[in-house]
């Protein structure tokens, strides 16, 4: 028999109900105060530092981390609630999201104590922004082809090379990057890369913005020229990044951000069609809601397994595969269903603007954070096909 795929019907525990109310109330206050417009996803929201600090002050960053490092020792399921409410409200999370989801946990696991005590509390307070330095001009999905070199020198390493498609690098305080410390070996082509904590203020780092088809400038090219990284900025094992990168992926791949990126167009469609839609529209909405509900139940199930200390790598990859394909198709389906809405619908212009942005955003959803092809390869391995 093929290895079991488990998607147990995990429910969010009761403490999440109160938390959800608090998050919604907080977001409503922020919207009322003009911090952001929930109907407007197309904006440069990278610069919302005060909002980040207020989220931190509420105790909603580093929620699952030890108190010793500024964390709150709450569950992954509680973090899940905060993440999904922020995403659905279109809150400006870019400044803290990567640090909270991904970089903090890496530091917790691999950084020296001094650095943990320095940086983690600042992430929890919403003061620092992280970027991820994985892709290079000739290595994207093929992570282990990275060439940017870290050469040993007195007390540290000198970095030379280029990272690319690095989201938020232009506002980031730090980056967690992989650099080549040794060539790959014959036996293991993944050998030779090391994970580093990069202080973006280090001399020798130049960030060049790259325009995207949405009109935004969210990702960048980051050029390293003899940039010095001290020894204690090595994260984990020298040459052994490949052992560290994969176990984190379950966290990165299965969250609500993997199917809610374009959710706003569905809400706006329901608003535009009014309380009594025709059969065609009702059926279309019903199917989308059924698919959304199913995605979320799968995603919550994976969160529950993570909370229970399991490593559901295949299940998480399935969530990202199905979730990102769904959120990519969503604006197109909504466009179909909106074809016959009342031209005088009060939110027609909002919906049209949202659709234009979502349709332009859609192509990246199945590329970022592990392409569909890579994910299906991982699922195939889990099925015992490779």
């Amino acid at each position, binding site marked *: *028999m*093929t290895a*079991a*795929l*488990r*998607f*147990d*019907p995990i*429910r969010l525990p009761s403490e999440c109900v109160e938390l*959800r109310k608090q998050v919604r109330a907080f977001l409503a206050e922020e919207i009322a105060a003009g911090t952001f417009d929930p109907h407007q996803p197309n904006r440069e929201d990278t610069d919302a530092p005060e909002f980040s600090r207020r989220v931190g002050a509420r105790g909603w960053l580093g929620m699952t981390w030890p108190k010793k490092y500024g964390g709150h020792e709450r569950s992954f399921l509680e973090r899940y609630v905060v993440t*999904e*409410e922020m995403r*659905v409200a279109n809150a400006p999370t870019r400044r803290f999201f990567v640090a909270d989801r991904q970089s903090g946990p890496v530091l917790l696991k691999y950084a020296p104590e001094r650095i943990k005590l320095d940086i983690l509390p600042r992430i929890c307070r919403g003061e620092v922004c992280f970027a991820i330095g994985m892709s290079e001009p000739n290595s994207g999905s093929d992570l282990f082809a990275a060439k940017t070199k870290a050469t040993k020198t007195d007390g540290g390493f000198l970095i030379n090379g280029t990272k690319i498609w690095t989201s938020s690098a232009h506002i980031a305080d730090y980056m967690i990057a992989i650099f080549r410390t040794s060539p790959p070996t014959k036996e293991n082509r993944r050998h030779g890369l090391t994970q580093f904590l990069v202080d973006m203020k280090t001399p020798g780092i130049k960030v060049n913005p790259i325009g995207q088809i949405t009109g935004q400038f969210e990702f960048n090219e980051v050029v390293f020229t003899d940039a010095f990284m001290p020894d204690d900025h090595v994260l984990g094992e020298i040459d052994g990044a490949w052992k560290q990168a994969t176990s984190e992926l379950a966290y990165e791949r299965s969250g609500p951000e993997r199917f809610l990126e374009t*959710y706003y167009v*569905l*809400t*706006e469609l*329901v*608003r535009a*069609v*009014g*309380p*009594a*839609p025709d*059969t065609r*529209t*009702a*059926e*279309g*909405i*019903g*199917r989308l*809601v*059924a*698919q*959304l*509900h*199913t*995605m*979320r*139940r*799968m995603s919550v*199930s994976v969160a529950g397994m993570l909370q229970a200390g399991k490593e559901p790598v*295949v*299940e998480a990859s*399935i969530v990202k*595969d*199905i979730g990102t394909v769904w959120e990519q198709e969503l604006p197109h389906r909504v466009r179909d269903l909106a074809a016959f809405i009342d031209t005088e619908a009060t939110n027609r212009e909002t919906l049209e603007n949202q659709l234009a942005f979502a349709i332009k955003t859609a192509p990246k959803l199945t590329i970022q954070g592990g392409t569909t*092809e890579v*994910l*299906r*390869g991982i*699922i*195939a391995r*889990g*099925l*015992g*096909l*490779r």
Partner: protein
Amino acid sequence: MAEVENIVAETAERIFADLADAQTVNRDKKGGWKTPLWRALTESGLPLAWVAEDCGGSGASLAEGFSVLSAAGRFALAVPLAETMLAGWLLSQAKIASPDGAMTVAPAGPRDRITVGADGTLSGRARGVPFAGDAGHIAVLAQASGGVSIALVDGSACRIEPGLNLGGDGSDTVTFSSVTPAAIKPAPQGFDQTSLLLMGAVARSLQIAGALESMLDISVRYSNERVAFEKKISKFQAVQHNLARLAGESAAAIAAATSAADTFASGAASDDAAFLEAASAKIRCSEAAEKGAAIAHQVHGAIGFTIEHILHRYSLRALAWRDDFGSESYWAVELGKRVAARGADELWPLVASR
């Protein structure tokens, strides 16, 4: 394959493995497997799992019964076990004792109505009633002038026009012409045809998800055996990605169906939440059946298209089960109407409440 969660499902799974093995069933053109299988199921009390002991049943929980249905789906079971369980459950709603033998339920779709006349007899027509021809009795939900009634009817009192679903199982038209029921009682407050259809939809969703699990399993196995172009076809990336998609569809069906079953078993959800869960399960499992069956057949090539191969037992039943207790199109329209009536800003709170 999912772990078996309880002793009831474990018993069912053992009986299915011994007496309803797909290979054996598929070779036996005369259906000789049916009698020993049904006898074993009856002896272990499974058909009346959802009937309380004082009504002649074995008093299993809803959760235990649901896991029996998942297992039945994994074996593409072709006897009226799910139907008898649903019938027993329906009769129990009105505290009507269940008779021995196979049963089914009517109506099995949203467009049919059975009515109770002034003289207490039942009239109306129900199409696509699963296994009506094999059932000794039919549990009927009927509309009376004062409300909804639940009735037990002897199958021989009705006119049954036999039909077959895509999988070759009975799917019959049952006509009630002033039929005097063997028993009839009012349904509990708030119980109506939608309540029956939602429960049926959850049952069929679990069966579809189970069948998809098996389709994934046999497709993966076949791809690791079949050699083409001098290598196992599982080594071709195109095949791997197709199977990864099948795994995704299977996973979505499992998640949707078990979530809905859990909702009904725990019984604590609001009407809208229970509707969202059951309707979504039927919609998503039906979509998964379409996509998943296509991939399973594609991986198997011509051999999977033969009557000798077991694949069709799962694929055609999964596709057939889409039609019972409201198709995905029906539930999608109803769910869409509910969502629209609640309003745009109430959609997310509904989804997040689950």
